[in-house]
């Protein structure tokens, strides 16, 4: 019997458990002390160890004064068995800490254990001389861990809006809370963004302007449309100096470089942050929980109650929604599943396709309309403003239309939700790309400023809509509801509001390059949005009655934010790689704008070797090769994960087989103690024996390579004279795991064997 203590690889110490791959030793120790881990699935040795430990723990009577002490001693003795835990270096310390955290005992006990453990470690540690390199490595990782912890403490101590979000979660549930989390996260990112922009771009420019000041006059409409006096201001790209700024001190500040690098770092840095966050969220919510759709009832019972609920109203709503969902599940269980004929399927697919085509077609028509409107020569002086207004209202209303349209289609409820989200997001992104493209290709002088103005206008108009109009609409709705209470009140539409946030963020990404102070504007807007939404949510909305897997929706929203950033980055990159920006702005001198790196910073024309290297790297062949390598590694990882998943399935099948074995053995024990003989391998002697039938009709086929044949199960035995059990009549509910699940509905096989035997004997 192999030793159960597994080898662990010493991993660099990380602070938060989520980042380490499972600490096997910690888990081992924790497992050994969970008394309710039943033995059947363990090997004999581990079972003995378990029962020893548990027996020891239980044997210490809990009312003797030093019972806790004795129990702690037992635990420490167990932990001492694992040599990796007991060494006197930071890595072991981290492992010990994780093992302690995972121990399912009370806190007082844990403190006791910790004290004893450190005493034991210092007693037994052999001072081995560590090499200088290792000591340096340890010190580095230790210092890194300390800084991370301190940083996290700092972030936690300035947690903005912690209490308000907690109150909202308590009243309306965690799904609505997730919207506010998204808002807060985006707000803090934008705050950081505006901080960077102001420090590196605005302040030097202000100093420069100070030297040669101009006066401007602003009209009212100018502030909204960004024209006139604001046009040549700090707000827009065109204003920024394109050379070196000399301050009063003998310091020079190269504006183009600063502009380029700030923007580059911002875009790329945030892109990486978003990618990481999306990947983490995806792993946590989709991959770790894959294949989990078949336990509908169990999920409802065990994960249905939101433990964060604080108000009585939300609690009664949660209870009511659980009641409704249970009733729905029960009725679905007994619904006869209508087999959709081929005709119906074709009809459904056609309808879906038609609606998609309609949606895409109307989007394109919209784009064409916007383009045409823009291209019309200005009749009034504020034509641009009008077009922006039209655009904003269309973008605000379309999601509601999509909501309505999706009801005409034949999707499952979850899919239709995702489809609506995707369509809305697509509409937003394509519209923004269209605007970008239009202005980039137009022949206006200084198109960048115009684009910046457009972004500025859109942000402003959208804030009018979401800060003023929408709350007003919600208040009116709640008033109507109060006067005429029919149905439920207005619910907080998480999807719509989250998409508004994503739209704003995408607008910011688009406009940031051309209007640096837009970051500040959007930050202020999010700040106000939080307070206004909070008031409207607490007073005017009811919690949603049916919450669609909030965790997975969060992942999808993060993904949309990342994709928006990616699209913008791509667009800007393509644009700046090729064309020039010689009319205005800080990049006037550089012929393709990207040459700012080449000529400006690196001075490529002077360094020949560097030039050669960079030219080589940028060649399409190299980039194509890197891309192919990336694809190959993605494919490899995917293949690995598929293999792991099938291994998990295999092990699950083994688990179920063990359960059947247990069943068989228990019955066999009962029979033998009754004096009956069971085992007879030869079929001619005792073909009806319990053992023979079990081995040949249930176990033997499945022993062959674990390809479990469902027809060999108990319900293949003759059951014509069995009383009808309600369970056996359960229709095949939809299982996403294919037919493995139906084969494993082992419904007390030994009972069947017993009954049949008894009947035959009589």
């Amino acid at each position, binding site marked *: 019997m192999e030793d159960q203590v597994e080898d662990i690889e010493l991993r660099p110490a990380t602070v938060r458990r989520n980042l380490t791959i499972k600490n096997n030793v910690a888990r081992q120790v924790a497992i050994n002390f969970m008394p309710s881990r039943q033995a059947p699935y363990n090997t004999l040795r581990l079972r003995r160890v378990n029962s020893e430990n548990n027996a020891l723990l239980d044997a210490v009577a809990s009312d003797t004064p030093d019972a806790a002490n004795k129990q702690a001693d037992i635990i420490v003795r167990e932990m001492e068995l694992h040599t990796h835990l007991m060494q006197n270096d930071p890595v072991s310390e981290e492992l010990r800490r994780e093992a302690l955290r995972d121990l399912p005992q009370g*806190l007082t006990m844990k*403190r006791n254990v*910790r004290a004893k453990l450190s005493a034991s470690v210092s007693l037994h540690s052999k001072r081995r001389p560590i090499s200088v390199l290792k000591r340096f490595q340890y010190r580095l990782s230790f210092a890194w861990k300390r800084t991370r912890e301190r940083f996290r403490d700092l972030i936690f101590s300035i947690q903005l809006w912690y209490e308000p979000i907690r109150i909202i979660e308590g009243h309306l549930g*965690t799904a609505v809370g997730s919207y506010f989390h998204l808002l807060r996260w985006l707000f803090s990112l934008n705050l950081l963004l505006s901080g960077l922009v102001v420090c590196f771009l605005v302040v030097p420019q202000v100093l420069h302007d100070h030297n040669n000041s101009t006066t401007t006059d602003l009209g009212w409409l100018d502030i909204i449309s960004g024209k006139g006096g604001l046009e040549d201001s700090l707000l827009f790209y065109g204003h920024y100096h394109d050379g070196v700024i000399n301050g009063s001190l003998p310091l020079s500040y190269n504006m183009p470089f600063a502009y380029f690098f700030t923007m580059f770092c911002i875009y790329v840095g945030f892109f990486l942050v978003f990618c990481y966050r999306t990947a983490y969220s995806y792993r946590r919510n989709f991959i770790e929980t894959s294949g989990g759709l078949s336990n509908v009832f169990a999920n409802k019972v065990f994960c*249905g109650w939101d*433990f964060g609920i*604080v*108000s009585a109203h939300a609690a009664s709503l949660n*209870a009511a929604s659980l009641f409704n969902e249970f009733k729905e599940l029960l009725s679905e269980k007994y619904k006869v599943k209508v087999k959709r004929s081929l005709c119906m399927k074709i009809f459904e697919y056609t309808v879906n396709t038609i609606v998609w085509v309609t949606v895409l077609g109307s989007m394109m028509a919209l784009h064409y309309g916007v383009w045409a409107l823009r291209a019309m020569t200005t009749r009034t002086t504020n034509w641009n403003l009008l077009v922006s207004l039209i655009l904003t209202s269309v973008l605000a209303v379309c999601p509601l239309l999509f909501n309505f349209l999706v009801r005409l289609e034949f999707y499952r409820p979850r899919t239709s939700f995702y489809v609506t989200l995707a369509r809305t997001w697509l509409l937003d992104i394509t519209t923004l790309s269209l605007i970008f493209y239009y202005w980039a290709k137009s022949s206006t002088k200084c198109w960048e400023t115009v684009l910046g103005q457009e972004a500025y206008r859109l942000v402003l108009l959208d804030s009018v809509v979401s800060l003023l109009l929408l709350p007003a609409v919600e208040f009116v709705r709640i008033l109507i509801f109060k006067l005429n209470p029919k149905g439920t009140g207005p619910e907080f539409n998480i999807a719509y509001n989250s998409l508004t946030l994503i739209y704003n963020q995408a607008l910011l990404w688009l406009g940031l390059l051309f209007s640096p102070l837009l970051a500040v504007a959007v930050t202020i807007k999010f700040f106000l949005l939080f307070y206004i939404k909070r008031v409207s949510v607490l007073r005017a909305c009811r919690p949603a009655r049916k919450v669609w897997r909030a965790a997975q929706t969060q992942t999808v929203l993060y993904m949309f934010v990342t994709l928006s950033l990616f699209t913008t980055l791509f667009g800007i990159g393509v644009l700046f790689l090729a064309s020039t920006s010689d009319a205005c702005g800080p990049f006037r001198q550089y012929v393709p704008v990207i040459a700012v790196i080449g000529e400006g910073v690196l001075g490529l024309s002077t360094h020949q070797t560097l030039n050669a290297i960079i030219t080589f790297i940028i060649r399409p062949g190299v980039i194509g090769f890197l891309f192919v390598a990336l694809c190959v590694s993605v494919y490899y990882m995917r293949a690995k994960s598929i293999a792991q998943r099938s291994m998990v399935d295999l092990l699950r099948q083994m688990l179920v087989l063990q359960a059947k074995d247990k069943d068989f053995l228990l019955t066999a024990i009962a029979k033998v103690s009754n004096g009956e003989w069971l085992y007879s391998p030869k079929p001619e002697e005792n073909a009806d024996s319990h053992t023979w039938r079990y081995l040949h009709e249930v176990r033997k086929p499945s022993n062959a390579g674990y390809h479990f044949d469902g027809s060999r199960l108990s319900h293949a035995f003759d059951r014509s004279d069995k009383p009808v059990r309600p369970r056996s009549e359960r229709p095949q509910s939809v299982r996403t795991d294919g037919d493995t699940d139906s084969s494993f509905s082992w419904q*007390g096989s030994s009972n069947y064997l017993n009954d049949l035997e008894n009947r035959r004997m009589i």
Partner: protein
Amino acid sequence: MGNKVVTFTEQQLEDYQDCTFFTRKEILRVFKRFRDVNPELIPKSMTENQAHTIILPVEEIEKLPDLKENPFKRRICQVFSHDGSGNLTFEDFLDMMSVFSEAAPRDIKAWYAFRIYDLDDDKYIGREDLLEATKLLTAGQLHEDEREEIVTSVLDEADVDGDGKLSFMDFEHVVARAPDFVSTFHIRV
């Protein structure tokens, strides 16, 4: 030099940080919530062994806003108390908040959730436990036979070894595949 009351010694704070999933600020915040239940009983300074000797009775703990509306509040207090009665010391309370916090990993939550749903404390979640749980979850709105149906379905889905009740293994199996478990089994401190 003001009269600064030290709530915990440095050693205590380090211990708590190592044994729970909290940072220092969070620990102090938890202490504040604990003290707000009964400010007379709980002193401001817990530097000696008050952290594991002073006991808050279960009736007062249940009045905490986080637990007030929870149908399983009595059982939660019983699970986390050191003697099974429901009366909590500060360290029990800290333990409880740590398990319910965001940083606690899935398997710790699953372990404690199993103990909470095991209402009769027999190391299994049996039929009666499930019946009682469904009654509590829907605030008594379901009929007796509907509840029986639900319990049968749950056992069908989750019971792998067919003994008519859920062991920890079965429970963990179900919960590990539920994406919402971690977000619902969460109390923000």
